[in-house]
């Protein structure tokens, strides 16, 4: 048994050694002197945002270490880590994830916050939106013309859409949309809509991408999603894939504009670089990235930067969309989920 214990000890040492070798980055993250390395927890996909990190490295000489995972799981991780979190910046997919760790985030300077409209940042200045995404109705162009797609999500309860609608009710983006509807038309009307929609046997998907894929495959005719998934699916399946987005007019809740955003952790070891990074995300150059390069064509949030062709600008969108406060979505989420649960959307 001594041999075993010895082996075990040897293995531990070996593993620790390997950990040291492979974990140069990890070791750097725990140094609190901000030795030139910035640690970002990114809930945004590597495929979409990696060029932004590279550019920041080139521009500032600061090395960026990125941990990629699901936004909400990273939020839970930050909460579990507490003050010992190695993260400097949390770059998240949705206001909900940022709101969930709000008490761990530091206030951002006004000049950073003021880059974007008040709608797209936290009321207390703890996180700021970095790019916009509009809710749309994606539809199959073999089956429908744009005019045949209803102008309001409230029309989707018409029996003619029975079995033809796809949604992702467990996904944060759908829940934000329902929250917007609640704040816009009230809980009772929202419940009624959810119940009526359920009568139409909507198909449930886990995330937005499968909804768009299913629309392309003709499994459903229309889907309620964020606008940019269309471009990702077309990049995979080809430009001639029979799908298109309809941006809903007027103040329909189905035209909600939400954001991906970023915040700096209060416990950040490299707070200066962290702040600089958030500032960088809102620079004209980074905002133009969404117009000129990014496949997914998100909407720039900074004044004067136009989105990619075919995507309405923030100005055009700001006439439409419900008038709601994104930073209140965190507290409102619970009521939304209760409603979704009671109406059978999330069991």
């Amino acid at each position: 048994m001594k041999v075993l214990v010895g082996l075990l000890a040897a293995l531990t040492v070996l593993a620790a050694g390997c950990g040291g070798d492979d974990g140069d980055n990890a070791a750097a993250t725990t140094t609190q002197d901000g030795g030139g390395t910035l640690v970002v927890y990114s809930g945004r996909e590597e495929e979409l945002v990696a060029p932004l990190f590279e550019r920041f490295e080139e521009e500032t000489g600061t090395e960026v270490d990125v941990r990629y995972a699901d936004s909400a799981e990273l939020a839970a991780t930050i909460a579990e880590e507490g003050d010992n979190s190695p993260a400097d910046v949390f770059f998240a997919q949705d206001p909900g994830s940022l709101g969930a760790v709000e008490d761990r985030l530091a206030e951002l300077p006004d000049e950073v916050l003021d880059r974007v409209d008040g709608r797209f940042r936290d009321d207390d200045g703890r996180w700021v939106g970095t790019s916009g995404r509009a809710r749309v109705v994606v539809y199959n162009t073999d089956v429908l013309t744009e005019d045949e797609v209803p102008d309001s999500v409230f029309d989707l309860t018409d029996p003619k859409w029975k079995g033809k609608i796809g949604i992702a009710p467990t996904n944060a983006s759908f829940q934000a949309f329902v929250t917007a509807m609640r704040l816009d038309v009230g809980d009772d009307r929202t419940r009624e809509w959810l119940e009526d929609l359920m009568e139409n046997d909507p198909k449930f998907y886990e995330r937005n991408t499968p909804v768009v894929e299913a629309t392309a495959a003709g499994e459903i005719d229309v889907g309620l999603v964020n606008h940019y998934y269309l471009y990702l699916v077309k990049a995979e399946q080809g430009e001639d894939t029979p799908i298109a987005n309809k941006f809903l007019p007027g103040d329909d809740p189905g035209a909600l504009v939400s954001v991906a955003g970023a915040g700096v952790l209060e416990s950040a070891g490299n707070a200066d670089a962290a702040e600089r990074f958030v500032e960088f995300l809102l620079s004209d150059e980074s905002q133009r990235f969404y117009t000129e390069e990014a496949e997914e064509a998100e909407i720039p949030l900074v004044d004067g930067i136009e989105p990619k062709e075919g995507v309405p600008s923030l100005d055009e969108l700001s006439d439409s969309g419900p008038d709601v406060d994104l930073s209140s979505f965190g507290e409102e989420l619970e009521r939304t989920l209760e409603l979704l649960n009671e109406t059978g959307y999330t069991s």
Partner: protein
Amino acid sequence: MSRARGGRRAPLALVLPALAVVALALLPLVYLVLRAASGDGRGFELLWRRNTLELLWSTCLLVVSVTAASVAIGVTLAWLVTRTDLPGRRIWAVAAALPLVIPSYVAAFCLLGALGPRGLAQQVLGVERLPEIYGYWGALAALTLSTYPYVLLLTAAALRGADPSLEEAARGLGRPSHEVFRRVTLPAVRPAIGAGALLVALYTLSDFGVVSLMRYDALTRAIYLQYRALFDRQPAAVLALVLVALTALVLLLEGRSRRRTHRTSPGVARRLQPHPLGRWKLPALAFCSAVVGCFLLLPATVLVVWLARGLDRTDWPWNEALNSVTASALAAAAAALAALPVAILAKRHPSRSTRLLERLSFTGNALPGIVIALSLVFFAANYASPVYQTLVLLVFAYVVRFLPQALAGVESSLAGVSPRVEEAARALGRGPVSTTVTVTLPLIRSGILAGAALVFLSAMKELPATLLLRPIGFDTLATDIWRFTSVGAYSEAALPALLLIALSAPFVYLLSGRHEPEATEHG
């Protein structure tokens, strides 16, 4: 760790390591209790919701069906490749075990890609609609695909190791072959089937990838939903504890079905005269082809089609492959070492407490990866920060998650070695430690290797804990697959997936047992 029944007291050198291993394996459970106890108790209200009961029911339904399907397929195959004159049975033995290397989430993607709406099958067959694959049947298919090899491998190993003289005697007495199988062969390998079924059931309980892709409402899906939508860790912990309770139930059932089947004599290790299949040869071949076709060739074809579509866009993920292999190999070695004291204690000093200790080490296996990951985030970030986000912690997480697989390997070979051999060594004046090292360990070497190989294969596929616990920038093949599939870029995910399969395949060859029974080497 009191006295074994009629045996001698378990040496401290065995008890202490075993206790340490189990204590570490219980960390996720401790975390869950801490989380469930904090907060305002709202999480507990969840327990009495109708939805939760429905979830419990659908989870049980899935576990029972996947286990039943895996046992049916696995045992049939194991018998065919070890006991009959099936043509090409060596090749079938390996090919039929290979689906083990396909991560279940990849299997689900592939099944959807092949049989889903406007999938490959529809394009090839030119039909308008195929039966709906989402839901129960899709989840059953994808999970059975990735788990029946556990039953196949363990049962085949046990069949190879079983003393053939009893079966020969039964046949000599003129018993029909189905009766020989039912009354002689089956009881001899029942512990192995039970161990395999247990791994299948625990895997099904813990899986999230398949049930989410196939949109089947299981407990894990609800747990993830709590984390992802509600950012609420307390209800998630309560639901995870329900999962732990289910695990306890599964373990209890498996423990009951176990018989104490020590081999009374090492037996004569020689091949049993293969059972002639006769007119059943064609159906048997058709069965093997169907299993290998559906569960290996179909997913592989889908991956190759995807790969062909996007080969020009993909770089070979060599670095990721190296990382995967390094982390998985360390996990395999560590898990095998950790399993030894627990297994030897439970098998050689059986008592209520040693068995309980062994069972407790199974907790981690049925918990979804996210729970293991967050528990280790919590403990390591706050109490062991030097190892946090290092390879050490990642390897540790793999050990916690996959310890039962190493245990299954070690225990099944321990069960095949008569304790009399060790008693003889003791009687000749060897001490307990010396006996273990010089007698027991060499005898169960192949079982240790088999357990380590199982852990290696699982660690290669692991995703949720890897994402949160890996050192920053430490990309593995599994995280690479995730990176591409999460933006719908299947053509780019195909290469890391195929590479993962190719790198894991040799271990299945090892596992599918060209080795002769232990007794030949040392008997």
